[in-house]
């Protein structure tokens, strides 16, 4: 999957290629049309200059600047055609230019340039209306209103298109971020339980296991042998990596600010095996794929955690609310002061939790209201 910057670069390259072909094939032909001398000199020169500037910007990797200038170049081409002998070409080229702006899929670019172009188009149609309709047309005004309405409609509908894309993307992104946070927290708990269970069986925690350290060292040295030009000693680097597992990293960053030590520590922090960071999240995600998940058909509520989405009957929802309260009160789901998962929530903690905005992903307003009206009963019988 290409990054956003790579995709934009590809798009600008395509637009410039298209501009080049279009310009080379059409501009020389139009020189024979009825343009004023100023137009014949100024606009092709402006087109060539802007095109070259856009290309240079692309080459020096100023991709967004190149994008803006490619749009200006197309704008100049549109004006050039609009001033030509047949205004219909000008109108059609306005659609093509709008399409180019749409092609970049950037809502702000579309709003600014698209609106400016549409406004120019509306004025242009108003001023050249008589040439855009047949001589025997019954109503020049109605015909021009159709031209203008179509252009305006096209601009507005594609604006909706962008808004729709943004809404969908934002929703997915928000959902993704929340789920990622949830997995991060679960990963930390899995690591805590795993290490506690290992200790019960008289094993050390993973990062202290000398055999595991040796395995990481041996594999790293093996891979490093394919990169003889690297200046760092791999064995020492692996030792430093495991050393970091026992350190207060913030203290290291403070003490070794802007040194190689800080740089290496920051790079390695993401891959420590005693923190729910990138490496352990990927590990969680991979082992989850191999884990024997629940059997059976896919129910629509598989990824739904809201009580009212899972349980349609009110009676069931109240029972579930009671079970949930009981669970939060008696089960050890929170870290205690020794960083063990041995603490539960108090009645006041639960009231705060249920009142919090983030808990709307579990309870609806109706259930929250019911709980608050009866919280003493919950405390008395389920605490």
């Amino acid at each position, binding site marked *: 999957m290409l990054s956003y910057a790579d995709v934009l670069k590809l798009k600008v390259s395509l637009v410039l290629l298209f501009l080049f072909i279009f310009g080379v094939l059409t501009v020389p032909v139009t020189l024979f049309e009825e343009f004023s001398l100023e137009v014949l000199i100024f606009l092709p020169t402006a087109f060539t200059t802007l095109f070259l500037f856009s290309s240079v910007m692309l080459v020096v990797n100023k991709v967004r600047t190149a994008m803006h200038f490619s749009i200006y170049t197309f704008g100049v081409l549109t004006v050039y055609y609009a001033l030509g002998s*047949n205004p219909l070409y000008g109108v*059609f080229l306005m*659609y093509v230019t709008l399409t180019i702006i749409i092609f970049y899929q950037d809502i702000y670019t579309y709003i600014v340039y698209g609106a400016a172009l549409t406004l120019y188009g509306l004025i242009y149609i108003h001023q050249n209306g008589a040439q855009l309709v047949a001589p025997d047309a019954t109503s020049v005004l109605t015909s021009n209103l*159709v031209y203008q309405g179509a252009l305006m409609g*096209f601009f507005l509908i594609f604006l909706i298109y962008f808004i729709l894309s943004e809404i*969908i993307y934002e929703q997915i992104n928000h959902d993704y*971020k929340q789920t990622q946070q949830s997995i991060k927290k679960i990963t930390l708990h*899995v690591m805590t339980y795993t290490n506690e269970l290992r200790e019960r069986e008289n094993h050390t925690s993973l990062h202290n296991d000398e055999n595991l350290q040796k395995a990481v060292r041996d594999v790293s040295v093996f891979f490093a042998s394919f990169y003889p030009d690297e200046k760092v000693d791999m064995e020492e680097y692996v030792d430093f990596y495991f050393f970091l597992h026992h350190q207060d990293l913030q203290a290291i960053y403070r003490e070794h600010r802007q040194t190689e030590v800080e740089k290496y520590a920051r790079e390695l922090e993401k891959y420590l095996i005693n923190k729910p960071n990138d490496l352990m999240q990927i590990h969680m995600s991979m082992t989850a794929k191999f884990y024997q998940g629940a059997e059976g058909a896919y129910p629509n509520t598989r990824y739904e955690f809201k009580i009212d989405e899972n349980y349609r009957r009110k009676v069931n929802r109240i029972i579930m609310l009671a079970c949930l309260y009981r669970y939060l009160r008696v089960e050890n789901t929170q870290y205690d002061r020794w960083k063990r998962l041995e603490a539960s929530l108090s009645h006041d903690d639960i009231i705060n939790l249920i009142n919090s905005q983030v808990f709307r992903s579990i309870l609806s307003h109706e259930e929250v209201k019911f709980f608050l009206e*009866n919280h003493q009963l919950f405390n008395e*019988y389920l605490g």
Partner: protein
Amino acid sequence: MTINHSVSMFKAHTEAHMKMLEMEQLKRKTLFVNVVLGLLIVPIGIALYNYGTTVGAILAYVFVFATVFAVNGVFLQYPAVFGESRLPMHVTILAVYVVFMSLVVELQSPGVFTLLFVAYAIVALYQERTATVINNVLVFLIGMLAILQYGDMFRNIGVDRTQVIDIMVFLFIFAALLSLTTSVLLKRKKHYLSQIAAIKEDEVRALEIVTALKDKYRRTPMKPEEYYDQVAEFSNALAEKIGMKNVFSDRIILMKYLDKQAKEGSDEAQETRGDTAARQAMNEVNEMLVAPQGKLQHIMYKASQLAGNDTMMASGESLRQFPSLKHTFDRMYTRIIALSAFLVVMYVDKPYLDGLSVKEVVGLLQQTDTSYLIDSDLLTLLKENRDVVEQLIELALKRGDRS
């Protein structure tokens, strides 16, 4: 259950979820398309009236719009009627082009011809693969037909026969650029949907893992019957407080019974006879059981993790920042350590899963989009030398072959 089965179940669930997400999005887009069509009725009506169209013809347009709204209304309200088909979308696309083609034929004005671009824009709102294909084919075919059959409307404003070809070229450029735009958008959308579907399944599996581990970790087994007894007492007090009959007790007794049956290994909790409504009601009760590894356990565990987390929504990664073993500014040796540590941690036995061989991990990586995950050179090295890497890990951990 084999490892391959687990992985294929994972895929099956994510694919099913992707389909559901696509259907939800389609519903939203359908709503947008219908609002736009609704807004167009008035200007189209005014234009037809001004061009002197007969009342009968105007009524025909009204009929087409009404049909579209009716079909889409049914789709939005009762999507199950159409199953997985995209029939309402196809009906709408066809209707949009019928209306706009009729306008071109009836009014034969170059201004009306530009309405085809509006038709294209409306259908583009669906942002869907088949819709895009149909949209391109129709705009091009209808555009060509209008140019060839009703070319006079252009000639009347000074466009000669050869210049009509220019209009075709414009039409082609227009359709080609917009298809390219939509295909880029669709590709990204598919990527995002697959990512969200995968991470959702990751979360459910992670919840299964953590609740199983929690159960293993506790020194005394969980006693669901204590939950039911206390909830029963609570329900009595609640019924008394609000002055009504206790409507909860039967349900709680049933839950307690089913939980006990499930614990004893009876299939009764899963097998339910009767009609669909009875089965749905029973499924709901089955999902209410407090027993470990039930849906309720996942809900309760997730709920417990929201404590002290009210700022959660503000932070966190985005779809453009996946956890990775190759961040942009990492040096090669850092990437090497990340990959080595990952392989070794995967290899180690866990309380919830036996360790995975390098071969199994490489097998999974081959089925995954690894472009953002692992340095491509290192991945190639790993594939070419997986036996060596496996042996190095085995020797260091002093274990036998597990593959």
